[in-house]
C-alpha cells in the first residue's frame, strides 16, 4: 500500500458535553475510539494515516474538564483539558508550583501551548521516529525495535527502562508532575480511579503499546496537586536541540525539601531518557541529610546514571542526565 501523508482519513466525530457522555462513548467504541484533546499528537497520527480510528471523541466541548481550582487539603485541582498556556500563566501555579509552570512554558511554541492541554501533554505518545513512521515495531504491535539495532539512528532514544522498545516519553510536564507527587484521576464507565503520577506512566516491560495506564475506554479527567511543602526548592530544566518546537533530549524536575540548610527529602525525576518519567530513588537517597550543594549534586548525578545503558548514538545522554541531576540539586531554588 502506497504511503500517503498529510491527508486525514475520514472518521466519525463525537462531541460530548460531559464526562459521563464521553466515557460512555469511549466504552462504546473501545479500541476503535480515540480521545481528542488539543490534537497536537492526534493530528500528527491522523495526517500520517497511521492511526485510523473509526470514532473520535472530541473533549473540546466539555467545560468541566477545563480550569484550575483549589483542591482539598490546600492543593490544586487541574482539569485535564486546561491549556498549557493557561497552566503556565496561572497565578497559583506560578507562585506555588513554579516547577510545573516552567515545564509547561517550555513546551513547543506559544501556538502549541495555546492549543495543547495538560492532559494531552501527559498522555501523549512517544516521538520515536521509527514508530512514528508507521513501521511495524513492537510498540506498533510488531516484533522488532528498529531503533535498537546496531545501525539504528537512536540519538534521541533511551538509556534507562528499555524493554525491547527504546522509545522515550516526550512529555515536559510529566516529570514535573511526578516530582510534585500529583494524582491522576481516571474515569471510565465503572467509575473513577486515582493513580499517583509515578504509577500513571508505564514502561514497555508492562505494556509495550502504551505509555500510560490508560486503556481503551479510560479518560484522564483531572490532575490533583498536593499542597506544596513550605521551604521546598524547585528545579526544572529541559535540554533540546533548539529553543522552540522541540522535544527534550533530557529533562530534570527536582523538588527538595530543605530545612536549616539540609535536604530532608527529595524527589528527583528525569524524562527524555526512558520510556516513562523516571524517579531517581538512588539520587534521592544520596542527597538526603546533605546540604544542597555541588557535592551533593555530584553524588546525586553519579547515583542517577548507575545502570544506565547507552545505545549506539546516545551515550551523551548518560553525561547529560548526570549533569542535569547534579545541577538540579546544586541550583534548586
Amino acid at each position, binding site marked *: 500500500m502506497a504511503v*500517503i501523508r498529510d491527508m486525514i482519513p475520514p472518521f466519525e466525530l463525537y462531541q460530548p458535553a460531559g464526562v459521563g457522555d464521553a466515557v460512555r462513548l469511549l466504552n462504546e467504541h473501545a479500541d476503535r475510539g480515540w480521545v481528542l484533546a488539543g490534537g497536537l499528537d492526534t493530528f500528527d497520527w491522523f495526517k500520517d494515516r497511521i492511526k485510523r480510528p473509526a470514532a473520535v471523541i472530541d473533549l473540546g466541548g466539555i467545560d468541566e474538564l477545563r480550569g484550575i481550582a483549589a483542591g482539598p487539603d490546600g492543593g490544586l485541582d487541574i482539569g485535564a483539558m486546561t491549556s498549557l498556556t493557561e497552566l503556565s500563566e496561572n497565578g497559583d501555579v506560578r507562585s506555588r508550583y513554579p516547577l510545573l509552570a516552567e515545564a509547561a512554558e517550555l513546551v513547543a511554541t506559544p501556538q502549541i501551548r495555546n492549543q495543547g492541554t495538560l492532559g494531552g501533554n501527559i498522555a501523549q505518545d512517544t516521538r520515536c521516529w521509527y514508530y512514528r513512521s508507521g513501521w511495524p515495531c513492537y510498540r506498533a504491535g510488531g516484533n522488532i525495535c528498529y531503533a535498537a539495532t546496531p545501525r539504528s539512528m537512536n540519538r534521541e532514544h533511551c538509556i534507562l527502562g528499555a524493554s525491547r522498545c527504546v522509545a522515550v516519553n516526550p512529555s515536559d510536564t510529566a516529570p514535573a508532575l511526578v516530582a510534585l507527587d500529583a494524582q491522576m484521576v481516571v474515569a471510565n464507565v465503572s467509575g473513577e480511579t486515582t493513580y499517583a503520577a509515578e504509577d500513571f506512566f508505564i514502561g514497555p516491560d508492562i505494556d509495550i503499546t502504551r505509555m500510560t495506564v490508560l486503556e481503551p475506554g479510560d479518560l484522564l479527567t483531572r490532575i490533583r496537586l498536593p499542597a506544596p511543602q513550605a521551604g521546598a526548592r524547585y528545579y526544572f530544566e529541559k535540554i533540546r536541540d*533548539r529553543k522552540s518546537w522541540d522535544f527534550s533530549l533530557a529533562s530534570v524536575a527536582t523538588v527538595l525539601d530543605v530545612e536549616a540548610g539540609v535536604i530532608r527529602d527529595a524527589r528527583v525525576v528525569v524524562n527524555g531518557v526512558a520510556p516513562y518519567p523516571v524517579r531517581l530513588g538512588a539520587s534521592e537517597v544520596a542527597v538526603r541529610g546533605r546540604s544542597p550543594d555541588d557535592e551533593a549534586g555530584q553524588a546525586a548525578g553519579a547515583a542517577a546514571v548507575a545502570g544506565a545503558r547507552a545505545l549506539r548514538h546516545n*551515550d551523551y545522554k548518560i553525561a547529560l542526565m548526570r549533569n542535569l541531576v547534579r545541577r538540579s540539586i546544586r541550583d534548586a531554588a
Partner: protein
Amino acid sequence: MAENVIGTDIVPPDLRAKITGRARYAEDFRAEGMVFAKLLGSPMPHARVRRVDTRAAEAMEGFLGILRASDLPPVEGLGEGALTDEPKYEGEPILAVAAVDETTAAAAVEAIRVDLEPLPFVLNPLESLREGGPNARLDGNVGGRGEALTVKWPDSVFEEADADKLPMGEPTTEWSIGDVEPAFADAAVVVEETVMHQSVTHHPMEPRSCMAYWQNGKLYIHGSTQSAARTRPNVAGMLDMDPDDVVLVAEYCGGGFGSKIAGSPIMAVPAALSRKIGRPVMLRITRYEENYIGRARAGFQGWVRMGFRTDGRMTALDLYLVQDGGPYGRASDFSTAATVASLAYQPENMRFRGVPVYTNTPPRSAQRAPGGAQIVAMLEPFMDKAARELGVDRLEIRKVNAAGHDGWVGSGKAPVTSAYVREALDVGAELFGWEEKRQLSGRRKGTRVNGVGIGLSPFVAGSTGFDGLLVVRPDGKLHVHQGIGNLGTHSIADTARSAAEVLDLPWDRVVIVWGDTSKHLPWSSVQAGSQTTHAHTRANHAAATALKGLLQELAARDLGGAPSDYRVSDGRVYRAGNPSVGMDFARAARRAIQLGGKFSGGEVPEDIHNMTKASVAGLAGQGLIAAAKDNYPHEGSTFSWVISFAHVELDVETGEVEIIDLASAADCGTVLHPRSLAAQTNGGVFQGIGMAKGQRWVFDPKWGIPFTKRFYTARPPGILDLPLSPRFAAVNLPDPQTPVGAKGIGEPPVGAGEAAYACAVADAMGGRCLCRTPLTADMILAELEGRPRPYGVLDTHV
C-alpha cells in the same frame, strides 16, 4: 528634482498583499472544473517497477486518471523526470492519480499495488567508492560529463585511512595552481584535518504546489518558482512543447533558496495529467512530499591541508572533497567550493581534487551559496587554528589573506571586478566590537564559557547581458516589466530602481509588472546565483537610458531643438534652462502611441532576446516603449563578501550553545535598499547558523529512509535560537564594473553565519574543532566529557 531612489528604504509593491494574506500562491488558484492529483512515492531507496496494478483505484468513484513516467517525454542521460519507473530515492514519485477531490485521490493511491524489485542502494558516498560497494545508479556511481562513471578505489585506500581520516583514491576532478608540496615543506604552520559538511534539505515555507489547465492548445500553469521568464522554457522543455504556448503565473513564491530556480520537475505532472484527462489539475505538495522532491544541498566528506607563513599568509591549500550528490545530474557544489576557497584565501599554491558521488537520497540542487557555504564553514575554523598556532589575531589572518581589487578566483585565476574585503572586515569588526569581544574568548561564567568567531564568505554576485523592458503609459507612470521572479527578496522592485534613477523619477510613479508571462515580460536572468541585483539593475539601466533617449527625441520633435537640449526629471521631459517647455510622461505616452514606430514598440533593437521582442510586440501601441539589452562593459567575475562575527556562550554541563551577539558586514557594492539588504543578510546568516547548529537530514542506513521529514525533526533554527538584534552594515562602495555599482547579496551570508558560529563554538571549546556539522549539544558534550562521540567525523545523514 526627484528624491534619489537608490539607497533608500521603500515599500515593495508585493508587501501589503503578503502581509494581509491577499497574495495568491500557486495553491490558492482555482479553475472551472478543477480536480486534484496525488503522488505515489517509492517506498524503497532504489528499485525497479515490475508491475502496477491500478484496478482497485480505477474502480473508485471519482477516479479520473493516472499519469506514469511513460506519459511524459523521455528523460535523457543523468536527467531527472517528474515520474520514474526506476526510483532512485525513497519517496521518488512513480505515478500520479487524479480524482474529483484529494480524499479520493489519496484513497486511490493507497489502493494501487506497485510491485517493486529492490535494487542496491547507497547513502554514504565512501561506501559506494569501495570495491564491490553499491552504486546509486545502474549506469555508475560518480558524475561525469553528461554520463555516469564507475569509480572504485582499492581496499588499500580505505585501509590507509582510519575511521577519522578521509580515504583519498583517484579523483575525477583535479586542478592545481603552483606546487603545494614545496610550499608545505617551507610552511611555518601546517594544518591538516578531515572535515565533513552534511547535506540538508531546503525546506522553503511554500511547498512546490502547482495547478495547470489547457485552453486552446495553450498551457496555463500556476507554480511556485524563483524565476518567471526562465521557468517558461523549462516547463515547455519538460513537456516537449513550444515555450510560446506556455502561460506561467507565479507572482509570489514562498521561498526557494535555490530549489525552484526555474520551476521544478514536478510541474510537469499537473500539466500532463490535465492534458490527459481534460480537466484543470491541482497538485498540492505537502510538507512531507516537499522533503523528498524539494531538493537539498550536496554534502561533502573532505580533507584539507593548509600551509602558512609566520605572518599568517596562506602559502598552500590542498583540498579533497567527496560529494554526496543525490541520484541525478551532477551537482557542481564541490567544484564551486574549490573556487570559493581560492577566492577566500588567495593561496599562493593550491591543489583541488574531488569526486562527485551519487547516493540514493533526494536530488540535490543549488542551495543558497552552493558549495561556497559548505567550504567556508568547513575551512574557517582551521584559519582560527592556524592563527592560534602562529599567534596571529584571527581578524588579522583574514585580512592578510583577503582578496583585494587585484584578487583572483579559480583554477584560471580569473580577475574579480572589485573586492572591498578588508574594508568589510574593518566595518564588521567595528560593529561587533571585535577588540573587546575577543578578550572574552574562553572566559568562564559559572558553567558557561564564552567563544567568539569570524566567518568570511565570498560568493558569485552577478551576471550580465539580459534585457530591460519599460513602458510609459498614458497614466504617466513608468511600468517596469520584470522577467525575474518574485522570490521574496524585493528584487522585482529594487532592480527597477536603476530605471527610476536614470529617469530621475519618484518611486511612487513606478509600477512593477511581474510574475505572469502573459503580461509581456523581458528575457531575464534566473533569480538565482545572486545574479539578479547585478544583472537587472544593469538591464533596467540600459532600458531606461534608451527610454530617456526616446523621450528626448520625442520632445525635440514636438517642441523644437535638439534631443540633447532636453532633461528628464520628476516625470517630465523639459528643455534645459526652461522647464516650462516640456511635456509630462502622460503626454509623452500619448504622443508615442500616436507616432507609433520606434516610440511605441514598432521597432526593437536587434540584439534583444526573442522573448523580449515578442513582449514588445505584445505591448506595441500602449505607450512609450523602450527595450534594451545590457551591453555595458564588464571584465572579470563579480563577487560579494559577507563577514559575520558571532559571540556564543557554551554550557559545559549540557553542551548547549546560546548565541549572545551577531554582527555582519558586507561588500555588495552600492546599497540599493538598506532595510531589505539587512533582512536578506541576516536571514542568510541565520540559515547558515541553522546548518551549523542543528539542522539535520537523518536517514536510517538499513532501509535508506529519511526521518527528518517535518520541521520539528529537521530542526531548522527558530527565532529563539537567534539573538534579538543581529546587526548589519555594508561597506557601500560601488563596484566599478556596473553602472549602479550594486552586486548580489543572496548567498554569501549563509557561509559567513555558519562559519562564524562554528568558529565561535570551537573557540569556546578552547580551539577544539569537531570538524563536522551539525554541532549539536550531544556532539559538544561528548567531546567535553571525553565520551564516545555520537557520530564519527565521516558519518553522513546523522
